């Protein structure tokens, strides 16, 4: 079937089966490979994109379910104000190790800050717990979200358990 989707502000047409996950449309049809494959069951968050501004797991989102919802991927997230700030904070604090999960982390963090510009540690936990970092760079992910938000980055959770 032919599907017309809006990716990072550009209209793209693809020929695909209705049940093909958006992840493989992005990666193998459109060659937008920044969105990563981790688990295929929405358990790790490596494939996180924005669908209508909301984080979605592209690995379990059939292309037929996308419709007219605008899609933003890591390749396009820097166009938004929050996306730009999040990426800058990620680089400033040198968050990544292997980097494989980080596109997904940045997408989820950007969605969090767009909705909640001054997140608490609990807000960060709630928003980010769906995104696994196998290198466990969680210390810096937390700090970078706070840095992007202009909040102090020191981890003070121990003082208020």
């Amino acid at each position: 079937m032919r599907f017309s989707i809006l990716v990072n502000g550009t209209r793209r047409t693809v020929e695909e089966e209705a049940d093909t996950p958006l992840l493989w449309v992005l990666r193998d049809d459109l060659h937008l490979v920044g969105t990563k494959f981790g688990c295929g069951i929405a358990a790790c968050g490596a494939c996180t994109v924005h669908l209508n501004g909301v984080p979605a797991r592209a690995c379990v989102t059939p292309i037929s379910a996308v419709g007219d919802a605008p899609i933003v991927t890591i390749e396009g997230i820097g166009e938004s104000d929050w996306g730009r700030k999040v990426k800058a904070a990620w680089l400033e604090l040198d968050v990544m190790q292997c980097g494989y999960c980080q596109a997904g982390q940045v997408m989820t963090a950007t969605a969090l800050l767009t909705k909640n510009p001054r997140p608490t540690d609990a807000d960060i936990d709630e928003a980010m717990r769906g995104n696994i970092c196998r290198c466990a760079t969680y210390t810096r992910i937390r700090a970078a979200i706070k840095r992007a938000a202009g909040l102090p980055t020191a981890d003070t959770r121990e003082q208020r358990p």
Partner: protein
Amino acid sequence: MSGKNTVQQPGAGAKTGLHISRRAFLGAGLAVGGGLLLTLRFAEKASADDATIAAYIKIAPDGIVTLTAKNPEIGQGMKTTLPMLIADELDVEWKNVRVEQAMLDPIYGAQFAGGSLGTPLNWIPMQRVGAAGREMLIGAAASTWGVPRAQCEASKGVVRHRPSGRTLTYGALASKAASLSAPDLDSVALKKPEQYTIIGKFTGGIDSPSVLEGEPLFGIDTRLPGMSYAVYEKSPVFGSRAVRANIGEIKALPGIRDAFILHATERDAAVRMGLVDGVAIIADKWWDAQKALQKLRVEWEPRSVKGQSTPAFEREAARLAGDAPQSVIRRDGDFHAAIARAAKVVEASYSYPFLAHATLEPMNCTAHVKADGSVEIWAPTQNPGPGAKLVARTLGIDAGRIRVHMTRVGGGFGRRLNNDYMVEAAMIARHAGRPVKLLWNRPQDIQHDSYRPAGFHRFKAGLDASGRPIAFRDHFITFGQSGQVASSAGLPRNHFPAGYVPSLEFVQSLIQLDMPTGPMRNPGGNALAFAFESFIDELAHAGGRDPLELRLALYGPPRVLPAPPRQFGMTIPPFDTGRARGVLELVADKSGWARRSALPAGTGMGLAFYYSHFGYVAEVVKASVKPDGTPQVHKIWAAVDIGRQIINPAGAYNQAQGAILDGLGQALHLNITVQDGRVVQSNLNTYRLLRIDEAPPVEVHFLRSDNDPTGLGEPALPPVLPALCNALYIATGKRIRSLPIDPRLLRST
């Protein structure tokens, strides 16, 4: 734990040591397009016949410096660290540095990511390359000006003549420098630490901006013209032969180009991580191949799976522990006589499970077997050299006809020291006659790993009246194949407390295992630390001693123990009890260990120390439990001694914190179980990696002892597991002796 376990990485063998024992020679030449091409040659002697030359430095006329990173980048940061070492001594600005990933090539010597060896093996050689380059550029300037070179100095890519103030940029000097002969690498002077401009500075990962732009860097991102995609389905029971499959039906499915059975070409390929039987499906799109798997029916030849289940392993371990051991690893003094006169005897059994690596980038590889029989491979691998040899052997071609591109690696953790996915891709590509990208799905990745081996320890120790251990015994029940200890399933004979307790026995018995095991981040240590450092804690409490004080007493006064024998041509640094003491005291100070009795009831602090990969690490965990028994980690402190210089603080703190949280996840959740010869877990919902809401604050302190820097990918991982369990003992009075932690054992009753 030292030498033996740390350097026995696949591929880190003889060649690794050659980097240290061989002399290095420098050569110079003109770069394509003008400029200096500085080369480093490792050779036994300076003869021309073995003159293999590697380009490390290219200086373009515009002053842009391109440095080669020879080792794979798996998140450990070597693609940034190694060029930092060259760039600092070369005296160029980091912003003008570009980094190129080397191909696999014998001219570079060993190219691998393992054993936390990147830093100790390259710390001096890479600095010397940079320093030699600087000397040549200064020489070129001095000869241009006709002045003594002693009057010239270099800084930020510019040579300056002090008396006249004249300057020339490296870009302008590069071509001239290329005509000069290179200095003797052993005699080039290196900077003093106070002269460093890049080493020791917080330096972001060289590829990080590209990752956040979504650029194709990882193996999974490889795309070639005319490329197809493949999946490869293997038997859930390791190493079963594929008898037949519904190939015709699969080939008729939409988008499928081909499907066929491949057979193993070597004996014991399953436990050796070679090519094993399977069904390859090739498609125009990966998703089509993946979807076809749902329709695939394969008849696997039945093979005996007797005893190959987690409960059966546990029963066998209990039986073996009660029997005489099968072999002796080490015997000091007379354990039985010593235990007979002990004031107190302590016995405990510890165990830990198999673990999968679960790198977030699933195994994948892209291969092209060309019409002339040569092979080109794009692989996210930690260990490309043995991978190319495996491909050569399996395809029956000369290894020299294989080119391997090292892509960025989405997580290694030891999994990609093996290259099974590489040989699969090559065999499938040869069959296909076109470039093929093989990508495993997650269940295949979890169910066809080289697992961290499970293990069982039956400890018995005797204390004297002062609470000091005088007798210590471990009957280690581990796994093997045909009487040989399985990969990464051994107990080093010098493991603590060997050497510190006068009468000691390490003995061993083996359970037959028909599935593959292999190194996982801090092989040996990631399991042994939990068992030994928990049991030492038990001994401290049994003898009424502070766990910190008992450790300090056991290690004794600061001294350097005799150096272990050289291995693989490498000098193994001796163990320094003063460094152990240093990190123990530092972590105690930073965590407030002495004030721990003031913590509220139900909150405990635990401590552990571990020496591995030449690094000394002590950690303290503060923890309590929820009413349902779930551990709550409040904070973790670490004191780390990896020598006098932290090359890149950005990477160092991140590695230490990540390793600690990696270990925490193992303690809390990770568990691979086996049923009838197959792995039960299949995805990240049942194999539960740590998430951000479970990650406590981690405070890392580096102790800068006056020793050469060593690696940090691994040493910080082990202590957190016993430190947590030791803290939970204080918090609850209950001792965790089996991993992962079962919260039901910690519930308040």
